[in-house]
């Protein structure tokens, strides 16, 4: 494999780095965390000016028609800078699902606005919080005269409270042997009658929401893809989204290591920089190993996705490994930074809390190792 970026990719990454360095300073990261909306509208609009919401959206729908690999570079820089907001839910969970399953009409009506940053999206899938699983889906969509009637409770839906459109996975038929049959996807306007949303207070304050659908009526053409095929349609999206999450995590890991190494070089105890102590050096070396291994797997999986090669196993391996590694890396970071790292003012603790949320998003390491085992034919 070629482990380098080409010139265009380098420029994209550098641009994103400069942009976020300038526009998303630590103070804004903190403001956003305290903010009720959970993101900066101003920053969102600046990002939209770059057109990054449309990175993987075809040109005919106002996007750049670049590959997922390019998107992963932007996500990594977002992770590095500590971005929080509805970018991931809109671009990955939302737009990618539409790209995968939508009719031309659905694509046009939704993706153009996404490309412009004018429509926020999310995916309402999980109901228990144990990672995506077909058999946990109990939300129902009943065929009625003028469309479908949705009923059920979705949990841990990112940024549902600000999403214009929520893609909801619901049962339209019998689940079959392992619950994977009979699931359909629907485009739901967040403002529809019967939708109620509660933002959950979480470790990362990352605006995961409970979304209750109480007799929500959606029109027939809000069905996304074939009825009953929702779970199959989501498979690719979930694998890609896992890698997208890893890209964010790798960015975060890189920032944490830089921050910690910088501290170790300057902080003095016992008359020397603490970075000269072997225990600190070995913590840092182990962090570097966590980072590089995670970055390589993410790079490779992203590249395969971008090149249209098979990526199921690579994606599962990636999310399994990065989930564990990023958590370990941030924990080691705290051992190096000591008290200075655990004070609220420290950026490290923000990354630490988000690492846990990212670890569990879209299935944790155990979840993805089980997928790897299945793909190994075990």
């Amino acid at each position, binding site marked *: 494999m070629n482990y380098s970026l080409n010139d265009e990719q380098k420029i994209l990454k550098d641009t994103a780095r400069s942009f976020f360095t300038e526009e998303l300073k630590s103070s804004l990261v903190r403001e956003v965390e305290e903010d009720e909306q959970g993101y900066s509208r101003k920053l969102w609009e600046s990002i939209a000016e770059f057109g990054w919401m449309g990175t993987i959206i075809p040109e005919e729908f106002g996007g750049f028609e670049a590959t997922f690999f390019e998107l992963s570079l932007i996500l990594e820089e977002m992770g590095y800078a500590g971005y929080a907001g509805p970018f991931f839910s809109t671009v990955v969970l939302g737009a990618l699902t539409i790209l995968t399953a939508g009719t031309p009409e659905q694509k046009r009506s939704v993706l153009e606005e996404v490309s412009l940053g004018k429509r926020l999206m999310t995916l309402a899938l999980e109901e228990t*919080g144990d*990672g995506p699983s077909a058999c946990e889906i109990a939300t129902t969509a009943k065929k009625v005269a003028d469309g479908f009637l949705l009923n059920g409770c979705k949990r841990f839906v990112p940024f549902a409270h600000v999403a214009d459109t929520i893609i909801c996975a619901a049962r339209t038929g019998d689940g079959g042997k392992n619950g994977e049959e009979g699931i359909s996807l629907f485009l739901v306007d967040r403002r529809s009658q019967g939708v109620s949303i509660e933002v959950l207070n*979480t*470790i990362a304050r990352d605006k995961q929401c*409970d979304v209750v659908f109480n007799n929500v009526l959606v029109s027939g053409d809000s069905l996304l893809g074939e009825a009953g095929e929702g779970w199959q349609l989501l498979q690719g999206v979930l694998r890609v989204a896992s890698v997208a999450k890893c890209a964010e995590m790798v960015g975060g890991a890189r920032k944490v290591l830089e921050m910690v190494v910088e501290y170790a070089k300057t902080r003095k*105890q016992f008359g020397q920089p603490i970075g000269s102590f072997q*225990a600190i050096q070995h913590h840092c070396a182990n962090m570097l190993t966590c980072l590089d291994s995670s970055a390589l797997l993410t790079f490779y999986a992203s590249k395969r996705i971008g090149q249209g090669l098979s990526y199921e196993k690579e994606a599962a391996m990636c999310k399994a490994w990065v989930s564990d590694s990023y958590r370990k890396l941030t924990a080691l970071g705290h051992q190096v930074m000591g008290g200075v790292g*655990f004070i609220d003012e420290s950026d490290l*603790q923000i990354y630490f809390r988000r690492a846990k949320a990212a670890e569990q998003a879209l299935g944790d390491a*155990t979840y993805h190792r089980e997928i790897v085992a299945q793909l190994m034919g075990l």
Partner: protein
Amino acid sequence: MEIELNSRESAILEEVRRFLKSEVTPELLAESHHLEYIYGGEEGRKFVRKFAANGWLTPCWPEEYGGLNSSEMLMYAIRNEMAYARVPIHFAGAHMAGPSILRYGNDDLKKNYLLRLASGEIEFALGYSEPAAGSDLMGLEMRAADKGDHLIVNGQKTFNTHAHVADYHWLAVRTNLEGPKHKGISILIVDLKSPGITIRPMITMAGTRTNEVFYDDVVVPRANLVGEINSGFKYIMAALDFERMFPFGHYKKFYEDLVAYLKTVTRNGMPLTKDPLVRQKLAQLEIELEIIHHLYFQLAHMLDNGKIPNYQASMEKNFLTDFEQRLANTALEILGARGQLREGANGAILDGLPEWLYRWTVIETIYGGTAEIQRNIMAQRGLGLPRA
């Protein structure tokens, strides 16, 4: 698990348990948790004074100073019961300052402080860490100028956890700028209401509070000097040998509550506790808790038998705090996204303790001497390996 106590002390421990069962109120629990189990809040003071009236706060102190002349074992057992009950258990006064006054203080100091400490009337805050002196206590710079009948103190402390609720500061200051660094440190007792002291909050990632404390020409009577001048470092080190105590009761309680909760959960139609991965994880925690029990009570046993736990306290601290991190992380692994919910969130499990512990336990491996420093101590003092 049995604890080695004679019948009189066993009876006392039983009484303590009964007391805790009957006297602990929801208000006390809330305050106690909010103050991360340090002593000094309003509810805590009420509770502890009643509790301490029985001599239970300082059972192993001599009776004349408010103790029961008991074994260390009873002391350790009571403290752990308190942790299990989630009442305040970190007593910088009763546990760190008091024993040092007993050992090194003159009669005046003993008279002035010990009975009040034993009764829970007053509390201390430790004043060791400074911006440039964290792990390296010897590097502390806060200056106390000797003016004969008083000292004038100037400088800054950080990470002084009890300072905003305590009455007195157990303060390490530099009284001699010449000579080896460890021979220029003294310990002063300072009334935290003294003019010139400013206390500023530092909030941690667990939402708990610690403090920066600034001294600006603070006058401290010479009578408040503990032991000999310039011998403070020796006292601090000795206290580390004798007085480090890290009860595990809260974590045992959390673990028990977690297991009880998990027994009620079904996943994919199967009881969650029938999942082989979950079984392995919980069994491992069960074993580790058993080890902590022994590491903890072994310290009391050693002290009661005249031995100095020169590395064992470090080992217990590290094992416990590592365990805490595994406990919190394992809880989150098993609970999935539900474990991320903070206190008060819809569906938060065990009052949001899982995610709080995940944040809090980061701090635990650093407070009171980092895990790395503890390993140095174990290697150098426990195994006699040479310093670099």
